[in-house]
């Protein structure tokens, strides 16, 4: 009885049904806005059952080593994708120049089995340059970073396009998101230490004409509205240029009814303290990715294709092409 069921699960006709279900799952996932993991998980589970059953029951796998290895590699891929989805982490952060990563992510998406060591990651953004071709076409990103490796040794290096920072299994990638960050120090009336903070203005040049942001200084209850104004052309559409902070600028700060234009070193009084403007820096957006299955997934994929090629080579070399 059980053997009959396994034989049914192993049939090529069932493989066809499963392939249609996987295709349907892909289309559902592609078209849906919400979470549709089930649409792919269910057919992939059936696919693994089909492969397992085929290996158990079909004698061709005993005769054809490449075919057996190909199907085993496919099972490994499905299992690794499942484990990867359960343990992955994908996130986004923004760090101003000189700022340390604090393990607080602006956006995060992770699997239920992600018990990573993000809080042990120590790295800081030491500034970046981005070349632009005429027409404001983004070119090479060169971002200097400082970090501590797994042994606690401090290291310095450069990341950017195609080069990520890898610490404790987490990969940090520079993104196209970057902009300007006015730096402040908050001196609370209630005493205690002064605290530094950065306002990350909207991404530049994408939001070139809306360089304003509402912000609450760390430890304060008052909101301020901050707007950056400058006249110089940073990214010239007519010629090659480089992303940089403007040499001359005005920072408009509005707190309640009061509106002030601040330069570096100037401050504004808020109901519960004094906010001092220290100067303008840049911020960089990073994408974070963690998935320990990646090297295994790659190895399984290469093994599957290699075995498929081996199988077809043997099959086709029996009879000439012409």
């Amino acid at each position, binding site marked *: 009885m059980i053997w009959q069921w396994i034989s049914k699960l192993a*049939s*090529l*006709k069932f*493989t*066809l049904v499963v*392939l*249609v279900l*996987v*295709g349907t799952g*892909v*289309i559902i*996932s*592609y078209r849906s806005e919400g979470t549709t993991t089930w649409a792919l998980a269910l057919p992939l589970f059936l696919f693994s059952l089909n492969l397992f059953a085929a290996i158990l029951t079909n004698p061709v796998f005993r005769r054809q080593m490449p075919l057996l290895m190909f199907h085993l590699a496919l099972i490994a891929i499905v299992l690794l994708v499942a484990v990867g989805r359960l343990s992955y982490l*994908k996130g986004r952060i923004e760090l101003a120049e000189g700022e340390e990563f604090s393990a607080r992510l602006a956006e995060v998406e992770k699997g239920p089995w992600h018990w990573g060591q993000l809080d042990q990651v120590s790295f800081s953004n030491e500034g970046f340059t981005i070349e632009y*071709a005429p*027409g404001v*076409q*983004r*070119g*090479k*990103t060169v971002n200097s970073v400082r970090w501590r490796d797994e042994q606690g040794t401090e290291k310095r290096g450069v990341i*950017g*396009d*195609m*080069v*990520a920072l890898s610490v404790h299994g987490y*990969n940090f*990638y520079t993104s*196209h998101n970057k902009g300007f960050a006015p730096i402040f120090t908050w001196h609370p009336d209630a005493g205690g230490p002064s605290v530094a903070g950065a306002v990350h203005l909207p991404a530049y040049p994408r939001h070139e004409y809306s360089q304003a942001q509402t912000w609450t200084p760390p430890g304060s209850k008052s909101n301020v509205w901050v707007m950056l104004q400058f006249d110089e052309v940073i990214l010239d559409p007519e010629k090659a240029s480089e992303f940089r902070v403007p040499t001359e600028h005005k920072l408009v700060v509005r707190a309640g009814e009061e509106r002030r234009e601040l330069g570096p070193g100037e401050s504004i009084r808020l109901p519960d303290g004094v906010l001092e403007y220290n100067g303008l820096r840049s911020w960089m957006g990073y*994408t*974070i*990715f963690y998935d320990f299955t*990646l090297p295994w*997934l*790659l190895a399984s*994929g*290469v093994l*599957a*294709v290699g075995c*498929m*090629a081996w199988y*077809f080579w043997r099959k*086709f070399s029996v*009879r000439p*092409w*012409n």
Partner: protein
Amino acid sequence: MTAGYELQALWAALVLYVIAGSVAIFGVVLRRKPERAVLALLFLGLALHTASIAMRWERIGHGPYITMFEILSSNIWSLLLVYTLAYWRIPAIRPTAAAVMPIMFVMMGWMLMSNPYDGHAPSTYHTIWLFIHIGFAKVFMGTVLVAVGISAIILLRQSRYHGGRFTRLPDDKRLDELSFRFMAIGLIFESLMLIAGAIWAQDAWGRYWNWDPLETWSFLTWLFLIFSLHLRVAYKTTPRTSALLVMAVFILAFLTFFGVPFISESPHKGAV
């Protein structure tokens, strides 16, 4: 000046392709065998097309993979390169040129209507993985094109319009087997294309798969290709059914490679 030579070489190549295709079609219609002339014209056209692409690459500093004009030009080149090699090495399938070349004529016309502006290569495109990814994709499309040519002959021979013009080709069963071989090679290269693309995407954007339009439709094409090969084995399909499946895979692959850019700002949307 270089742009002038580049365009002249491209036009000369296109003219040679058109002559080769026309000679192949007339050869079938008039029951002649102008195969050596067709082969020579195709190789000469490819040499000039290669020179044109190389001059453009040298002038603008990036390969032919950014604008629609470049994508079409490089695909005409790669499709014809794979097809010409098959035409040269497997004489039995040479009359398939009468079915393959009209497809190439359509692509050439489309290329001539597209804007040949220079375009800008994003910094994440400066990687060896892009070339590997695109190279595998081109071999995949080329092998499927050869299978399409063979399948077209099977379908034409079963229609009432062939007038006995394809009788000197191997029988349908043998053609079907040849077509299967090319589809199997296509499957290997499409799988490699997906793997190389995932490596590139991981390095460039921190995710190996993101279900963007091109990724999704490439995966669906791969799935449909596997489905068609399994269907053939599971149901022992007739040569006619297998040929129709090959056509369907080609249409899906064609729409993926050349249709997705119409619904996406870049080959991989947002991934620049």
